[in-house]
C-alpha cells in the first residue's frame, strides 16, 4: 500500500481475565470449566428477586495480586457500580462492575521489542462478574448456560501505547505469563479465561493527537489478534486516504475472511446508566493487606530473564521464551546451577523440550540433576549433539541417568582422529556418486559423506572432526 509508511498504528488493549477462585464473585457457586450447563447456579447468580451479592474476598486478593505484579497504584477504597443493559445472558439485567473507582490504576508492563525494552502503560484494572453463555442450536433455539454468570473477572485496560500487531502480541504474552506467575488465572484463550478486545486508531506520523478509534471484538487467538489489527490498520488508512473519516464503532473480526465488519456505531451504543451498587460495601484495602500480598508474590519473568542474561549470558529474547511458563522457569533455575553449562541447558529446553507435546510437564518428567549431567557431557564434548538429542528424547519418556546410559551403551564421543579417518575413508568408498559430484564442484556433496561417516560411527564421532577429515580426504583424491 502506497501510504502505509506515512501512518502510525495506535492501539490499546482491553483484556478480560477470569480469576481462578474456587467460587463465584458474589455467591458460593463453583466455577469449574466445562460442567453440565446450569449445574453451577443458585438464586443469587440467577438473579432471583430479593437475592443479594456478597463479595468473595479471594477475588479481591487476586485482583490485588495482579495489580501489584503490573506495577499499579492500589486504591485504598474502591467501589462497585451497576452497569445496566438488557441481554438474556445477564440475569440481573445489570453487571456488577467497577466504574468510578477501580481497585488498581496507573501501572505498566515491559515488553521486549526489536529496539529493546518498551513500557506499555496500564490505565486501570477493575473487578466485575462474568455473564452467562448463549448457545444457539438448530433444534431447540437459543439456550442459556448460567454456569459462567458470576465468575470473577478482572478487566485490564492498557494505554494506547501499542504501535504494531507484534507489540500487541508481545504485550499479551507478557501479560499472560505475569498472570500465570501470579497464580490468579489459567489464562486459557480457548476456554475463554483470557479474552481480548483491541481499540485501534491510526494517525499520520508526527501528529500528536490520536485518531478516531474502532473497537475490535471476537479475537479468539493471538494469531487472529495480529490478523485483525493488520487488516484494521490498512482499512483505516484506506478510508483516510480516500478522503473519508473513521467512524467510532465496534467491529467484529471474521475469522474466515480475515476482515473486520461493523457491529454497531457509537451513537447506537448503550447508555449503561452506571450508578453505585447499593448492595455492596466499599472495598477497603489496608497497607497491611498490600504488604502481605506483596510478600507472597513470585519473582516475575522480567527480573528472571535479566538475571539469566547477567549470570549465564542467555540472550533476553531466549529468556522471554524460557520464562513464559513459571513451572519451566522454576525448573530451569534448579537445573542451571547444577551444570557447568547453563546456556546449554537453556538451549536444550528451547530447541528440544519446547518442541515436545505438553512441554510444560517437563518438571514432572526430568529431574534437574539428570538434566545437569546431560548438559555437562554435551558441554565438555563427552557426547556429541546428536547423542545429546537422542538422550533427551529418551529422558523425556523416562527419567534415566544419562551418564549411566552413555557408559553402558558406549555413547561417548569419538575424538580420536585415526579412528574417525577409517569411518571417513569407508564413507568415501561407499559413495562414488557423491565424490563425483564433489569433483564437479558441488561442494555440498561433502555433507552427505559426512552424514554417512557419522552413521558408520553409530553417531558417536565428533561432527567437527568428521567434517574436517572428509575435506582432507576428498582433497587427496
Amino acid at each position, binding site marked *: 500500500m502506497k501510504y502505509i509508511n506515512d501512518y502510525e498504528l495506535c492501539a490499546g488493549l482491553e483484556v478480560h481475565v477470569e480469576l481462578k477462585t474456587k467460587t463465584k464473585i458474589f455467591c458460593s457457586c463453583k466455577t469449574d470449566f466445562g460442567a453440565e450447563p446450569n449445574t453451577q447456579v443458585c*438464586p443469587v447468580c*440467577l*438473579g*432471583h*428477586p*430479593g*437475592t*443479594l*451479592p*456478597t*463479595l468473595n474476598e479471594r477475588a479481591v486478593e487476586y485482583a490485588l495480586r495482579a495489580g501489584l505484579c503490573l506495577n499499579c497504584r492500589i486504591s485504598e477504597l474502591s467501589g462497585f457500580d*451497576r452497569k*445496566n443493559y*438488557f441481554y*438474556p445472558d445477564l*440475569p*440481573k*439485567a*445489570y453487571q456488577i462492575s467497577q466504574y468510578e473507582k477501580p481497585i488498581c490504576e496507573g501501572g505498566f508492563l515491559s515488553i521486549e521489542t526489536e529496539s529493546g525494552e518498551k513500557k506499555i502503560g496500564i490505565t486501570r484494572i477493575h473487578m466485575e462478574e462474568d455473564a452467562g453463555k448463549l448457545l444457539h442450536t438448530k433444534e431447540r433455539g*437459543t439456550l*442459556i448456560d448460567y454456569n459462567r454468570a458470576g465468575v470473577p473477572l478482572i478487566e485490564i485496560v492498557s494505554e494506547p501505547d501499542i504501535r504494531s500487531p507484534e507489540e500487541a502480541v508481545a504485550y499479551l504474552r507478557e501479560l499472560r505469563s505475569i498472570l500465570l506467575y501470579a497464580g490468579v488465572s489459567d489464562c486459557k484463550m480457548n476456554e475463554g479465561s483470557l479474552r481480548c478486545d483491541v481499540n485501534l486508531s491510526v494517525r499520520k506520523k508526527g501528529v500528536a493527537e490520536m485518531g478516531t478509534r474502532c473497537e475490535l471484538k471476537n479475537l479468539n487467538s493471538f494469531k487472529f489478534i495480529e490478523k485483525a489489527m493488520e487488516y484494521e490498520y490498512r482499512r483505516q488508512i484506506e478510508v483516510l486516504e480516500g478522503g473519508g473519516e473513521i467512524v467510532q464503532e465496534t467491529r467484529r473480526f471474521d475469522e474466515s475472511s480475515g476482515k473486520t465488519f461493523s457491529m454497531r456505531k457509537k451513537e447506537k451504543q448503550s*447508555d449503561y*446508566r*452506571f*450508578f453505585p451498587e*447499593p*448492595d*455492596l*460495601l466499599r472495598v477497603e484495602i489496608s497497607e497491611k493487606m498490600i504488604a502481605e500480598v506483596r510478600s507472597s508474590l513470585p519473582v516475575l519473568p522480567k527480573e528472571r530473564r535479566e538475571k539469566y542474561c547477567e549470570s549465564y549470558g542467555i540472550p533476553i529474547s531466549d529468556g522471554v521464551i524460557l520464562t513464559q511458563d513459571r513451572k519451566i522457569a522454576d525448573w530451569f533455575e534448579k537445573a542451571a546451577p547444577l551444570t557447568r553449562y547453563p546456556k546449554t541447558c537453556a538451549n536444550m529446553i528451547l530447541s528440544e523440550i519446547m518442541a515436545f507435546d505438553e512441554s510444560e510437564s517437563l518438571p514432572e518428567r526430568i529431574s534437574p540433576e539428570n538434566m545437569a549431567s546431560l548438559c555437562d557431557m554435551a558441554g565438555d564434548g563427552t557426547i556429541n549433539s546428536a547423542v545429546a538429542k537422542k538422550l533427551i528424547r529418551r529422558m523425556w519418556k523416562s527419567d534415566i541417568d544419562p551418564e549411566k546410559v552413555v557408559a553402558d551403551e558406549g555413547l561417548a564421543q569419538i575424538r580420536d582422529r585415526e579412528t574417525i579417518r577409517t569411518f571417513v575413508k569407508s564413507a568415501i568408498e561407499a559413495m562414488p556418486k557423491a565424490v563425483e559430484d564433489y569433483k564437479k564442484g558441488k561442494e555440498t556433496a561433502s555433507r552427505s559423506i559426512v552424514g554417512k561417516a557419522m552413521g558408520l560411527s553409530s553417531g558417536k564421532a565428533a561432527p567437527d572432526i568428521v567434517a574436517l577429515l572428509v575435506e582432507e580426504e576428498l582433497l587427496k583424491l
Partner: protein
Amino acid sequence: MKKILERSVIEKARDLRAGEYSAVELTAAYLDNIEECDEKIGAYLFCDRKLSLDMAKRADDMLKGGDAPLLCGIPFGVKDNICTAGIPTTAASKMLEGYIPPYSATAYERLERAGAVLLGKTNMDEFGMGSSTENSAYKITKNPNDLRRTPGGSSGGSAAAVSANTAAFALGSDTGGSVRCPAAYCGCVGLKPTYGAVSRYGLIAFSPSLEQIGPLTRTVRDNALVFEAISGKDPKDPTTKDRIGDTLAGLESGVKGVRIGIARELADSNASAETKEAIFSAARALEKEGATIVDISLPSLELATAAYYIISSAEASSCLARYDGVRFGHRTKKECQTVEELFRESRSEGFGKEVKRRILLGTFVLSEGSYDDYYKNATRVRGLVKRDYDCAFKSCDVILSPVCPDKAPFIGEEKDPVDVYLMDKFCVGANLAGIPALSVPCKKSAEGLPVGMQLTAPFGGENILYRVARAYEVIR
C-alpha cells in the same frame, strides 16, 4: 376465642406457656377470623390453612420442649415482597404471578426458626410503589377502621391485618414510609429500622439503599420484641450490622430528661391543622411526663421528597430490570421475533402503571446528560439531609413529627401523582439518612380515625424510640 386475638403478643406468649390455649388453637382462631372478615378487608393475597396449622403444630412441640423463643406459636402475616420458600411471593405484581421463591428471606427465616406461625402473605402496592395499596395488581385493601378508606401503603395489607386482628403482628417493608404510613392510618405501631439493622436478603428490591424490613404490631413492646427477633448481622446481606443491644431493657424508663425536638418547619408544612394539633398535644403530654421540648430545624427536608423520588426510582429502574420474561415471572404469550420484543412485551404486560412511571423516571435520571442534574444532585441533597439530622440530634434525643399530612384518604380518590408523592414528606428523611423512625398511634381524629405520630432517632437509636413511644402509649 376472638377476645384473645385482642391481646398483645407478649400476653399471648404467656398464655401459650400457661397452657391457656395451644398454638394450633390460636392459629385456628386467626384463620377463622381471616375467613370471616378478610373478604371485606382484603389484607391477604395468599393463605394456606394446612400450612399454617402444620407450623402451629411444630410450635406446640417446641413449646412443650420448654425454652421456646418468645415468638413461638404467635401467628403473623408477611408482606408479599418478602420471599417465603415454597410459598407464592408476587410483590403484588402480575409480573411475579405464580412465582414461588426457592429460598426464604432472612427476616422471615428467623421468625420461622423461632416458631412463629405464618398466616399468609399480605397485600401491598406493586413492588412497594405507592402509599395506598391501591397499586396492587390483585386487589384493593380496605382500612379496617373505615372501609371506605385506604389502609395506606405500601405495607397496607400488613397494617390492615394487624388492625383487624387477622394477624398478631406482621412484617412490612419501608422504602419511604411504607411501614409508618399504613401503621398511622390503621392505628398500629410500625418501625422503619436503622439501615442495616435488619437483613434485606429476600426482600424483593425496590430501592436497596433506602429500604428496610420492619415490624407492624398492636403495641410498642410487641414491636420491640419482633424487631429483636429479626434484626442483627446476616452474612447474606453485606450492609447489615451487629445488633445494637437489648431494646426491651429501657422500655419502661419513662421520658424524664429526654429532649424531644420539633422542627419549626412543621408549622408551615402541608400537614392538616388536625394533624399538627395531634402532634403538639402529644408533645404537651410528654412534656408533662418530664420530657423537654426543643425547637429544631430541618431545612433540607423541603428538598428531601424530590431527592427521594430520584434516588428510589433510579435504583428501581435497575432492580426491576431483571423481570424480562426470560427466567421467571411473566412472559408474554405473543409471538416475538426478537429477544428485545420479548423483553418489551413481557414488561409492558407485567408491570402496572405506577411501576412503569417510576422505571421511566429512574431510567431518565440515570441517563447520560441527566445523571449530574438529577441523580448526582439528589445524592447531594441526601448528604444535606443527613447533616441536618446530625445537627438536630446535637440538641435533642428524638424528633417528633407527623407521619402523614392527614388522615387516611378515601379509596379511589382521583389524585395527582406529585401530590401523592408529597404525602411521603415526613417519612422519606429517615430513609435518606438511614436512621430509625417509629410510627405510634396518637389521639384519634374527630371522625374517630387513627392518627399517627412519628418519632425519629439517630443511627442505631431504636432503644430511645421504643422508650419514648412506650411512655406515650401509657398516657395516651
